[in-house]
């Protein structure tokens, strides 16, 4: 299929519908509004349902209900709206239901601003909800990757019976880039949804969807089972890209749109004789710890570049396990890192200009 020029938010909607999403529940918030707008227009055409709920809390609980009935369902919001959804998200994880949640991140804390940011790293990888649960979190760097990952996001959600988060930022949501919608085959063998609550017709025992386990032993067993699922995700779902690691003096870790800016800085630095590599997590959880084993002996330090105040540093330090000092360069509040800023920080680390 030929390339089309599409806005990120609309491309997410198109990719979700293509992946079989039939239900969308949301509540407006900048900078993701074009996504529900697109869904409101396109969902009826495929026999699906678009519904604007009265709040984020309501929207995520509609997702809970639709998923319990076996539907491919999605919601979207931006940072403060995702914060409001956290109760529903932990219930959905506890009840082991699949869904896709899109978070087009804006600056925080609180209402923050509406410009691009990555300051939801902790919110999406640690969860704002209670309990021992994890989300599978994808953070694509461009619209093509976002579109390519959407089918996988829905399939992985169904396979693991777990919520999956797709994280972009204001830039990913608002910008237009060329996109090609490719035919993709699922890499999962999806189990039959025999747990749905769609009525027994008196032909089977009732299915119960629930996240309440009052018996401590039963809840512990539930947690052990959930943990085994998260371990399987850690084993099978890690995605990352390693770029220019060979002979790198510094290795930068950056994800999403920030990684694109870093990549251009790396090209410029190479022309100046400074060799810098990039590890780009595509899944934020599970974090690509194994990628750090690829870092060569030439590397003197690791640098986290973020559109936040250093939220990814903890994961980088865990993955580094003391092998390299970990430094940080970031912008926040909707300010975008520049290649010049990144180059300046790298030069400071390698000890002045060459």
């Amino acid at each position: 299929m030929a390339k089309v020029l599409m806005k990120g938010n609309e491309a997410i909607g198109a990719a979700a519908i293509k992946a079989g999403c039939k239900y969308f529940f949301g509540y407006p918030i900048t900078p993701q509004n074009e996504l529900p707008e697109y869904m409101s227009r396109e969902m009826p055409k495929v026999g699906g349902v678009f519904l604007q709920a009265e709040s984020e809390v309501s929207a995520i609980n509609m997702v809970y209900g639709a998923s319990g009935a076996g539907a491919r369902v999605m919601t979207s919001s931006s940072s403060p709206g995702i914060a409001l959804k956290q109760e529903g998200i932990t219930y959905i994880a506890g009840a082991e239901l699949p869904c896709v949640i899109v978070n087009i991140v804006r600056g925080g804390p609180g209402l923050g601003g509406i410009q691009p940011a990555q300051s939801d790293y902790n919110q999406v990888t640690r969860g704002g909800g209670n309990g021992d649960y994890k989300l599978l979190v994808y953070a694509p760097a461009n619209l093509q990757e976002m579109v390519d990952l959407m089918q996988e996001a829905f399939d992985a959600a169904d396979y693991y019976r777990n919520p999956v988060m797709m994280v972009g930022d204001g830039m990913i949501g608002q910008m237009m880039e060329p996109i090609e919608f490719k035919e993709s085959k699922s890499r999962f063998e999806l189990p039959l949804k025999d747990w749905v609550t769609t009525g027994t017709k008196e032909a089977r025992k009732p299915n119960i969807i629930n996240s309440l386990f009052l018996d401590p032993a039963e809840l512990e067993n539930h947690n052990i089972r959930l943990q085994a699922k998260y371990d399987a995700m850690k084993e099978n779902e890690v995605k990352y890209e390693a770029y220019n690691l060979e002979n790198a003096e510094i290795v930068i870790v950056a994800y999403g749109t920030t990684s694109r800016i870093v990549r251009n800085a790396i090209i410029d630095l190479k022309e100046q004789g400074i060799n810098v590599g990039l590890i780009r997590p595509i899944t934020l959880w599970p974090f690509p710890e194994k990628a750090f084993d690829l870092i060569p002996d030439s590397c003197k330090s690791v640098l986290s570049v973020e559109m936040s105040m250093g939220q990814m540093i903890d994961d980088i330090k865990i993955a580094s396990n003391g092998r390299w000092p970990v430094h940080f360069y970031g912008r926040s509040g909707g300010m975008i890192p520049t290649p010049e800023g990144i180059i300046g920080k790298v030069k400071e680390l390698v000890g002045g200009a060459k």
Partner: protein
Amino acid sequence: MLNERVICAGFGGQGVMLMGQLISYAGMIEGKEVSWLPSYGPEMRGGTANCSVMVSERPIGSPVITDDATVAIVMNLPSLDKFEQDIINEGKIIINSSLIEKKTSRADLKAYYVPANEIAVELGNPRVANMVMLGAFLELTKTVGTDSVMMALKKIFGESKAHLMAINEEAMKRGAASING
């Protein structure tokens, strides 16, 4: 190496978003790396609109233009005041002289003054002023070919606006001629 970073700015309704999209779309048709990023949020409510367009031979990092635009196309006075500072040294600015009486305050810029609204009115449709400016931009920078822009326009317009293709093409030609004339 081609690496054009263009700001298109003006009032809402002057077609600056479309102008930017046409440059991006045409670049895509020509196999170049492109991005288009609109202004969004409260600043749009004030009646000004702008977008950042990148056309490059290498993958685009940030689609945001901070202070490194190679070209600015400004359709009204607030846009001139806001964006003339965001252009690189000795960059280009194309100014809609029909609505902006002022000259650019930067001596280093290569400034081009195009009476876009007057030309559009002469052509019989004031709404094609954006295409006059676009024609001037294409003539100046050769970022993308006019043919590619026409192909892009055809896609965006669709069947229902096919009858407007000719006047838009004419507007681009007149814009190009205004640079040379």
